[in-house]
């Protein structure tokens, strides 16, 4: 099994979960409804916890302590896609990102339950069950707001158009794509993207929204190239960690 390839895969999955988890947690106390506030905080807790479980696997194959890895790296050492680091914006933007991301993540973990790398397959089985609540939440609200008022539809559509190129960036290929597939660790980004697209089209088809024009994917995140928004977020996350590195999360 190609260890470098495996680590690259684990890092990008964990980093996506960690960064979006922190973005979600910024909704605490800010949501449009108390219920939504709690939903985003709760999903944040799941995602951050899941990222730590993956950092733990990385630790067991020779990488640093999970907390160090989560809080002490700089932006260029992060492998998350750019979509998850974008600021929350308005609620419709966060909701659309949550839908696009969680749809992909649920399929990704579903695929990983069959991974040849056992620790990952076992963890994926567990995470996949939890993510069902996240996708259920996203789907319910996209359907509801995507068929509600002109304003809610137009806001969601604008966010959708803006996010689409970033969403395509989730599937940026790794330099080890062939090894990952050949080793049976993961069926690859292209296979994931195909399933994701079909699922997104299916749900969007049940609303008054339209799929955006196909545009060029925003790539680079997987290689450590990020928007200006990531470093300030990391600084904030690590500030809390540096104050008390022994604090429990």
């Amino acid at each position, binding site marked *: 099994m190609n260890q470098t390839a495996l680590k690259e895969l684990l890092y990008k999955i964990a980093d996506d979960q960690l960064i979006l988890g922190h973005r979600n947690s910024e909704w605490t106390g800010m949501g449009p409804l108390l*219920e939504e506030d*709690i*939903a985003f*905080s*709760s*999903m944040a*807790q*799941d*995602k*951050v*916890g*899941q990222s*730590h*479980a993956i950092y733990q696997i990385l630790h067991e194959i020779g990488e640093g302590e999970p907390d160090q890895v989560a809080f002490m790296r700089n932006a260029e050492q992060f492998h998350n896609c750019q979509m998850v680091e974008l600021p929350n914006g308005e609620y419709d933007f966060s909701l659309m990102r949550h839908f696009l991301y969680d749809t992909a993540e649920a399929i990704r973990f579903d695929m990983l339950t069959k991974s040849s790398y056992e*620790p990952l397959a*076992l*963890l994926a*089985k*567990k*995470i996949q*069950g*939890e993510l*069902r*609540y996240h996708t*259920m*939440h996203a789907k*319910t609200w996209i359907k509801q707001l995507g068929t509600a008022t002109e304003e809610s539809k137009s806001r969601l559509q604008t966010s959708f158009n803006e996010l689409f190129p970033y969403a395509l960036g989730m599937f940026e290929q790794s330099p080890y794509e062939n090894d990952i597939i050949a080793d049976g660790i993961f069926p690859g980004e292209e296979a994931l993207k195909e399933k994701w697209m079909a699922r997104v089209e299916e749900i969007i088809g049940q609303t008054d929204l339209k799929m955006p024009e196909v545009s060029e994917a925003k790539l680079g995140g997987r290689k450590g190239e990020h928007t200006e928004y990531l470093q300030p977020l990391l600084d904030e996350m690590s500030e809390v960690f540096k104050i008390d590195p022994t604090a*429990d*999360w």
Partner: protein
Amino acid sequence: MNEVINKEQVLDWLDEVKDPEIPVISLIDLGVITNVDITDNKVTVDMTPTFVGCPAMDYMKQDVVDVLTKHGVDNVEVNISFKESWNSNKITDKGRKALHDFGLAPPPKHNLQVDIDILEHVECPNCGSDNTILKTPFGPTACRSIHHCDSCHETFEQFKPL
């Protein structure tokens, strides 16, 4: 401790360790303790979290160690693993009853494919009616959902199926 440690006794002691958020249910009845092994007077306890991000896991692990130490077991090892991962079907009947008496609807048994249908019409723990609706799958902690009963007009929580 000189005498040989007896497994039944250990399980009995472990029954004292409760879920910190729902202090009426033991970790054994919750299904979080998946195995107990006693070899050469060393007690090894395997645990698995209800939710991956469960913030109480370290606390529960320490609780297990503390309770066994209190009873004189000085060689304790606790492993946390996903080998036998948790799902809500693992809650015992005794555990389900404890949740119900606590006012939390126990999770329905399911085929591990939780979808929205099984979250609707959860039996109300106050009046027993199933004329209830799901308010939100995200309650005050990761493991609870919030429901409303149209019969007795109470809002109640469910230990959600996973």
